[in-house]
């Protein structure tokens, strides 16, 4: 069976367990994922399964992808990702449901694309501390980066110097999230804690290796 699934983030709420403990939970909708390709040890050197989720208009699909989906015997899909495969018989066009892969109480990793933050300064982007003083001769320097290197000796700024710039829309993985509930009727899974990305964003749920 596939060691992961694709889902769509729905939002957050909080859930009580039987003992009355309160947990913040993220709701992720995991509609049945379609197998669109199978990678095998013999042909590709590793074994994995390619899963697809979410419908897409045929005319918005590139011709090469149309053929790819047709070969799997399915309609064009929006999102396509590969997951490791533990040995089992899967064939093209199979639907993998949430309850086939995840069980309640399991610990999983969730990946997604974080929300875009735009052009941000170093305090927000790299957790610089800024100047924690408004007085003692400071003037409009409170969130400034300070020195970015020595002077005439290197005569340049080193590569990778942390500076202001575009922040967010990075691939982020949150590890060790506990599955609170698997709602197979609704194709939804609840995990404890936050998950990267906006509402309606694609998330990848992976079993812990």
């Amino acid at each position: 069976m596939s060691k992961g699934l694709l889902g769509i983030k729905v939002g957050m709420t909080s859930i009580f367990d039987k003992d009355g403990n309160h947990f913040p939970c993220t709701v992720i909708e995991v509609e049945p994922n379609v197998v669109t390709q199978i990678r095998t040890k013999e042909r590709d050197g590793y074994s994995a399964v390619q899963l697809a989720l979410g419908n897409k208009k045929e005319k918005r699909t590139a011709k090469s992808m149309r053929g790819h989906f047709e070969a799997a015997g399915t309609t064009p899909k929006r999102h396509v990702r590969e997951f490791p495969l533990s040995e089992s018989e899967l064939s093209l066009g199979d639907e993998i449901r949430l309850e086939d892969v995840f069980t309640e109480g399991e610990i999983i990793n969730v990946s997604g694309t974080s929300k875009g933050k735009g052009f941000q300064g170093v305090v927000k982007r790299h957790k610089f501390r800024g100047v924690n003083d408004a007085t003692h001769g400071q003037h409009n320097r409170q969130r400034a980066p300070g020195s970015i290197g020595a002077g005439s000796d290197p005569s340049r700024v080193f590569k990778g110097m942390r500076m202001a710039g575009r922040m967010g829309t990075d691939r982020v993985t949150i590890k060790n999230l506990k599955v609170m509930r698997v709602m197979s009727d609704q194709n939804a899974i609840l995990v404890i804690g936050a998950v990267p990305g906006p509402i309606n964003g694609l998330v990848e749920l992976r079993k812990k290796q």
Partner: protein
Amino acid sequence: MATDLMNLIETSQKHDKVPDFTAGDTVNVHVRVVEGEKERIQQYQGVVIAFKGSGARRTFTVRKVSNGVGVERIFPMYSPKLAMVEIVRLGNVRRSKLYYLRDLRGKASRIKERRR
């Protein structure tokens, strides 16, 4: 679809153990307390000074003055730990958040009773 799902999850959390009450009412909250193996009910009586949140995440704050010290407890409205909420007295107040009670002591902190 997605909103339905959220509503479904939120309604699954709700229960009808909490009656309808508003800020200013005096309530007696029965809380389940587990001590080792045994479970008992602890009562906490005071004035409701605020409601916060919506849906299944709604909470209310109960304030009382215990031995001259103000105590406030925040209860999640739909927590399974709430055994019962008794309405002791209805209060007549003109705002939804009664944080001003924190600055008042004794006679000044009384609340007018509301007629049903």
